[in-house]
């Protein structure tokens, strides 16, 4: 979604409520006398433009034409704890390939996801199996993330309207807090998401997911900000489901390369076995 520059100029004052923003938008439209608002922008009329821009900036952290990452996933559930080391390749918006390098039981397992189709290469049986669609969106390898969570920028800006709900100092750090509420037409599972971002460098610090009853369900925290491949990114993500005490998944980016040339061949079923 492109941001309308002229609107941004008018609305660069801080806004704390959707109502004011709506009122100002309509006033501008009247004053200027020009139908600035296209249909698309109308549907996003509830957006706080600056909040929205911050959300998009956070999303851009992990957006790239292609990427190669070495990631460690530490999964703790009620019943077991394990560390999974994976190599992840991504190309464009919908091609992901993963190779599990440890632990031993799963080493050599390959995953290919193209669009909504997902295949697993299983070294034990030397077979490739296709997953049913429902499984492509569920938790990956028993963790608290989906496969897409590891790679893709979220669709927060597309599915939620953003409003700045806090702007100031917290624990000695200047932060913004953005409240994301689902757009009426969006098919999403959360009732509300809160996102805290550091003002200085736009680094996210936490993201809290609430259910439709307004109950905090899970919390994602960001830390260990490092520059990798020329980008400052949080290299440790910890997801904690609050309904299951003690359970959590940490994702640690050991290394990540953005916008490196990767051939389409990497994402073919034939090469998945490699």
């Amino acid at each position, binding site marked *: 979604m492109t941001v309308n520059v002229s609107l941004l100029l008018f609305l660069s004052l801080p806004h704390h409520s959707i109502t004011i923003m709506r009122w100002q938008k309509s006033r501008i439209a009247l004053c200027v006398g020009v139908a600035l608002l296209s249909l698309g922008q109308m549907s996003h009329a509830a957006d706080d433009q600056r909040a929205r821009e911050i959300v998009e900036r956070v999303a851009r952290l992990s957006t790239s034409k292609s990427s190669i990452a070495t990631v460690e996933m530490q999964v703790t559930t009620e019943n077991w704890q394990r560390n999974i080391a994976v190599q992840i390749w991504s190309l464009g918006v919908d091609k992901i390939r993963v190779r599990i390098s440890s632990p031993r039981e799963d080493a050599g397992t390959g995953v290919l996801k193209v669009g909504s189709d997902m295949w*697993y290469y*299983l070294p034990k049986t030397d077979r490739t199996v296709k997953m049913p669609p429902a499984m492509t969106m569920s938790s990956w390898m028993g963790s608290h993330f989906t496969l897409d969570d590891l790679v893709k920028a979220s669709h927060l800006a597309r599915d939620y309207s953003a409003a700045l709900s806090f702007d100031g100092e917290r624990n000695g750090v200047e932060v913004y807090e953005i409240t994301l509420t689902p757009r009426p037409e969006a098919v999403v599972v959360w009732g509300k998401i809160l996102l805290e971002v550091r003002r200085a460098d736009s680094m996210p610090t936490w993201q809290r997911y609430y259910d439709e009853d307004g109950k905090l369900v899970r919390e994602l925290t960001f830390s260990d900000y490092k520059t990798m491949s020329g980008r400052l990114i949080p290299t440790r993500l910890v997801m904690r489901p609050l309904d299951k005490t003690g359970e959590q998944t940490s994702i640690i980016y050991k290394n990540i390369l953005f916008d490196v040339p990767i051939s389409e061949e990497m994402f073919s079923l034939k090469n998945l076995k490699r």
Partner: protein
Amino acid sequence: MSGRILGLAWRNLWRNPRRTFIAMAAIGFGYAMLLFVACLMAGLRQQMIETGTSLVISDIEVHAPGYYPKRSLYQTLGGRQGTDVGALLAAVAADPRVRAVSPRVYGYGLVNATHQSAGAQILGVVPNQEPKVTVLQTRIVKGSYLTEQMPKGIVIGDKFATAIGVGVGSEVILLTQAADGSMGNDLYKIVGIFHTGLDAVDRGLVLMSLASLQELLRLPSIRIHEVAIKLHAITEATAVAKALGGQLSKTVPVQVRAWSELVPELADYVQFNRGITYILFLIFFLLAVIGIVNTMLMAIIERTRELGMLMAVGMRPVQVIGLILAEAAGLAAASLVLGGAIGAPLLWYLQVHGLDLGGAGDDVSLAGVVVGRHWYGAQDFSAYGQAALGLAITALVSALYPALRAARFRPTEALRKV
């Protein structure tokens, strides 16, 4: 009163044999009908309990507390440390009422065939032990049951086979999340296909050897989810479950459930079935009341003179009541004997040959349980006894009104009647 009155009553009954016979035939035939219905209903109950507790659910199942019905992979008997399975099975088998035991492991997995995949419940059993508890091996329609020789052989339901497009000899990959969080996967060969008539089983159950499933799920051999128990007599299920629960809990925390707790729908149906049987009994008793009142009343009116004479020579009203009631009791007893004689061969036939429900030859399933083509009767002696007792009480109660009427006769007037 007593002996003399009873003898008098019995003689009175046979002074008009035709009337007594007609009454006896009506009541006796009714009793035979009750036996017939009770036998069929008991047969239906028995068949439903049997099929409901012979395919997957058994007479009694032993689980870790909280395991059933969620069936979480991690809640094995004895918790994460597992338990001495051999000792546990021996402890269960030590009860003389137990006929056979079978250890089991459950899992959920994705079954991948060449073009299709679908989720299924995977049941791990010991191939030569499980058939002593359940009869799934008799429902194999293609191929064969599990064998120790083919540890990677699996048996699946016919509807599931159709859904994922496989047959006997096909290879499939099972994918599951193992107990250590890893991705359990392996290649298996379909050795047999079963048809039980139970949709949920035919559509979503995969059977494999216990050891293979433990390997797939990365569960050590000391971790099992269930001990399935077959009893000599299923009627003892609740009592045995209670006894085993108390006894096994001394060594390992368990929850022992009889089939009626495992499949409450089935237990509800059994209650419902009994209820219907009693309602039929009640309707018949009401009809019997009318018949007996009529017979006895007629007998009294016919014998007004005679009764008047008896009272004139000194029989007290209370003795008259006793006489009439004794006659009714004698009539009922004779009728029951007749009814039993008519009913016995019927009951035998129902038990041995059953009623052929005919039709398309497909299984008839009721309340989620396969009943089969033949409706066999089963002997429910307590119901027969209850019917007999009910009928005897009915006879006495219905004779009460005629008896009271007779007791109020005035000898002088009665003697003048023709």
